[in-house]
């Protein structure tokens, strides 16, 4: 696990990574370690997961592009709600993140 962790724990300017509370999230059933305050997409990238969704028409893979919530390239299905901008949505303990194909499916019962 440690090997695949792409977090920057030590930094010459910013110093050591501040201590944060450890929590867990799920990416397609897989349990991942996250820290409180981290954004969903950052946790996935830290675990080497860069393919976040596939597009509706051409089924092309997409990852983070702008990282500030502008471009909507990083949208995924979070706790049953599709099209959530994962680069600006913080993780919550037990959150279920799913790879999204096209427009995704509303898992949450809406009717």
């Amino acid at each position, binding site marked *: 696990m440690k090997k695949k962790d792409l977090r*920057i724990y030590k*930094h010459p300017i910013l110093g050591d990574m501040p201590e944060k509370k450890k929590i867990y999230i799920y990416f397609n059933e897989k349990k991942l370690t996250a820290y409180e305050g981290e954004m969903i997409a950052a946790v996935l*990238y830290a675990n080497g997961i860069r393919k976040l969704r596939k597009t509706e028409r051409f089924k092309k893979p997409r990852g*983070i592009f*702008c*990282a500030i*919530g502008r471009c909507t390239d990083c949208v995924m299905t979070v706790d049953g709600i599709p099209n959530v901008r994962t680069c600006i949505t913080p993780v919550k303990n037990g959150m279920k993140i799913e790879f999204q194909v096209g427009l995704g499916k509303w898992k949450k019962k809406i009717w």
Partner: protein
Amino acid sequence: MEEKDLVIIGGGPAGLCSAISARKKGIDVLIIDENLRPGGQLFKQIHRFFGSKEHMAGVRGFIIGEKLLKEVKELGVEVWLNSIAYGIFKDKIIGVIKDGKNTHIKAKSIIISTGATENPLSFPNWTLPGVMGAGACQTMINIHRVLPGKKVLMIGSGNVGLIVSYQLLQAGAEVVGIVEIMPKIGGYLVHAAKIKRFGVPIYLSTTILEGVGKDEIKGAVICPVDENFKPIIKRKKYIDVDLICIAVGLTPLNELLYQAGCLFTYKGYLGGLVALHNENMETTVENIFVAGDCSGIEEASTAMEEGKLAGIAASEKIRNKKWEEEKEEIRKHLNDFRIGTFGEKRKLSKEEIIKEYYERIKT
């Protein structure tokens, strides 16, 4: 409906500075920001800023950010975070989604400081995971503290390209090269020199032909260009990278200004379509002001000065007072920043904007 004297949309360097200067004039100020903390892109700037001492030169961006936040807090400026200003309606009514709920707020005066967005660059496979904006990469490494890739190719040698390359090195990534289509480095040579000291090659008169990979980026093909910017295909070269960063400029985020009915003009040196404004940063719609990158792409230092100027000018109108000397001082600072080849051009463009403002406001 709640009413406010001054609503500032966007709490980046421009927005924070305008809030501070208006609050100091006793104005009731509200900042609306869609992020979970204000500061805009300041907190990912870990390099030292240029300019003179009195403008916090030599201070790192995120430290400036912390200082501004502290001041905003001490002055008691109201800040709505996680709040998206989605529209400006008639009579300066702003539609806001605050914590997921729709609400409206009426303002006497509005300052729009929504910043900018990164320009994309299209080449085959530019949509694959592993291609991202240089600013996005900067957010990843300096804010989220995650490396989005280990071997990086940077497209563009402007200041953003150079600075982010250096910061990638600081974060522990390998930068395999910087590609620049022009025959000359775009950014300040001070930044370029730092990069070169690390042995990072800067490929001038070179472009990217394609990204390589099926599900994510595994490599890139770069290629020199001739004097007409045509690729010299037989000299193309494959390089092994897992991240391609695009640093080819920014575009002002001006949707709200457009919606509010402001008139625009095209200024290439300022990043594209920008709202016309006068020497007080007031747009063609009375009591709607603009400041920072969304009024034309410059730097954080100019954004902060423009913010102060807009904040004082908006306060003048609300309080029906004049603080001409203070404003003149800020304008002088702004001109001090606008030096050098690019600075001069931006200064000229800004002057043209003010001139056009007065021509078009008449008709």
